[in-house]
């Protein structure tokens, strides 16, 4: 893992991007606000008004990175959840018994960016007839644990990115989907758009949050905290093409070893959804893991919806015009 980090740190790094000419001027105007020295309401209000309009130059594109999560080796230790919380300084969610196996975070949220899911697939028959040790050894499709560390899918054509009206959600230089917390105004469009239920709005600031794919760590040549902490290498991080290759080989390997149901979820685009930069190796239907069986990008309907919307309005205007022209003196 250390050598992997050295390899990653050798990738070209980006520093804070220089600002454009107009942004420099605007930045000077609100300099006290930017440096936390604004005194009085006028510089504060001016700063708040102008700040979101400051522009920097876009960082140079880097090699696309992502996650490949092999659920067959996940042991449900939740080290990824803890590492994510720790690195991103996310508050605890309290301790609740969900009644759903060992899952006590329940879902991804503004404060839980990694969520380990537990699926118990034990038939009544097998559990009553077998001794506990036999039950563990007899890992048939009806007598097994499935565990999966879930997170944002970092979709290539991501509905949240398309929906965001403020430009807070961007595809960064590593082709990961990133929410700029200082820009988000909590409109919730991204929440409505995400077919995976990844994003929620924080009750603390009213802004949307989700996995950043450890953008800050990546910029410093480090791998994301969850991948670093994973003791079984269920979570792989790296250049996306390499991950896809690695994942395909693993699927072939599993097929050869008698797990014919192994397949990849999100590694390639479907007719209704783009590929994802966080994809999974699964051994059961996606819905078993709480994933949509056939994710659908809602934007495929947008032009048709606009056409019907305009048609509805134009029809009413046409009626009004006809009546006015027919009945006017």
């Amino acid at each position, binding site marked *: 893992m250390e050598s992997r980090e050295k390899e990653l740190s050798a990738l070209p790094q980006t520093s804070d991007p220089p600002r454009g000419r107009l942004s420099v001027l605007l930045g000077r105007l609100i300099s006290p606000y930017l440096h936390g020295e604004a005194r009085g309401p006028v510089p504060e209000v001016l700063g*708040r008004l102008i700040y*979101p309009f400051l522009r920097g130059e876009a960082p140079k594109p880097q090699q696309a990175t992502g996650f490949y999560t092999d659920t067959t080796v996940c042991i449900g230790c939740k080290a990824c959840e803890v590492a994510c919380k720790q690195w991103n300084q996310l*508050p*605890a*969610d*309290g*301790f*609740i*018994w969900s*009644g759903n196996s060992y899952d006590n975070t*329940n879902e991804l949220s503004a*404060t839980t960016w990694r969520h380990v899911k537990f*699926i118990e*697939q034990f038939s009544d028959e097998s559990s009553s007839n077998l001794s506990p040790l036999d039950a563990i050894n007899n890992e048939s499709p009806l007598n097994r644990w499935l565990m999966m560390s879930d997170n944002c899918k970092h979709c290539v054509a991501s*509905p949240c990115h398309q*929906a965001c*009206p*403020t*430009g807070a959600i961007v595809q960064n230089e590593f082709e990961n989907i990133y929410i700029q917390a200082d*820009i*988000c*105004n*909590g*409109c*919730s*469009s991204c*929440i*409505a*758009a*995400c077919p995976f*239920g*990844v994003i929620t709005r924080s*009750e603390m600031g*009213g802004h949307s949050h989700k996995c950043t794919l450890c953008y800050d760590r990546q910029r410093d040549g480090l791998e994301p905290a969850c991948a670093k902490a994973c003791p079984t290498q269920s979570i792989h991080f790296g250049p996306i093409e390499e991950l896809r290759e690695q994942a395909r080989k693993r699927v072939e390997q599993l097929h050869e070893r008698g797990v014919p149901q192994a397949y990849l979820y999100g590694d390639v685009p479907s007719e209704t959804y783009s590929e994802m930069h966080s994809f999974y190796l699964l051994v059961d239907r996606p*819905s*078993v893991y*709480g994933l*949509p069986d056939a994710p659908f990008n*809602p*934007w495929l*309907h*947008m032009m*048709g*919806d*606009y056409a*019907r*919307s*305009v048609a*509805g*309005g134009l*029809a*009413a*205007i046409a*009626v*009004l015009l006809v*009546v*006015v*022209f027919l*009945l*006017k003196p």
Partner: protein
Amino acid sequence: MHANSSPQHASTKPPLPGQGGQIGYENTTVTKVPGWHGIIAWDALLNGMAMGLFLAAAVSELAAPTVFMRVAKVAYPVALVLLLVDLVLLVLDLGDPSRFHHMLRVFKPTSPMSLGTWCLTIFSLPLTAAAALSLLAEWGWDFEWARLLAVVVGLLPGFGAAAYKGVLLSTNAQPGWKDARWLGGYLTNSALLMGCAELLVLSALMGQTQAIAILRTAFIVLLVLNVIPLGLLFANLSPIHAQLYTRGQQWRVGALIAAGALIPLGLMLLNGSLLSISVALIFLLADSWLVRSVYVKIPHTSPLGVRSSE
């Protein structure tokens, strides 16, 4: 922290799921519900009322100035007030209302909310000008050409501001909403219907008999026309409604919506007095609010199966 999470002592015994209890993630709703509640139903109503009134007044005035000029001059300030109330609701609905102006950082045609924000912002300028010049004309400062120019300039962004709302609430991944292909068609059509009714009431209040005669007929035809996109919308939503509501509940809401359309129709066919026109408008607005409210509630409502197991 999750809203419903409460810390428990570590020694508390975990509750075991009972018969038929949910284990795993199959059959759970994957998507998260955005915090769009009743305020959005009111926003959708006020948006329709404001844009519809402006569009109905502008189209009527441009088509028959001698008949509609006087009532249109009153309609523009009323539309402006409705728009301002709507904008306040939109700002209040944000997670961080102090960042409302962040909406204008970018223009993204892929985002219906971005397109809508820009349409509303641009539209507010000619609408304000038209309203102000209409009021000034009442006080003797008549800049007729400038007022008409503002009205013409406001037509396109006004139409856009009416048309985006349905697309915003249907282009997403929410259960039910994602299937509402005719929501935009219904809402835009309904905006013009409400606008026509509002203009009719204003005409009645001002005693504009010619305007009343024309708008009454237009209102009746528009009311019938509006049944088409409403029917198509409910056809889109019937699978989700079947999951969320019992047959009895569906019939009750359906009967209320039907009454909200039939009562104004009956009143308009019977006579065109100020009282019947006003009552018709009230029923129409209540009906329009009910449709929007039922729609906005969909992702917030648990399926019947889940409710019965609880």
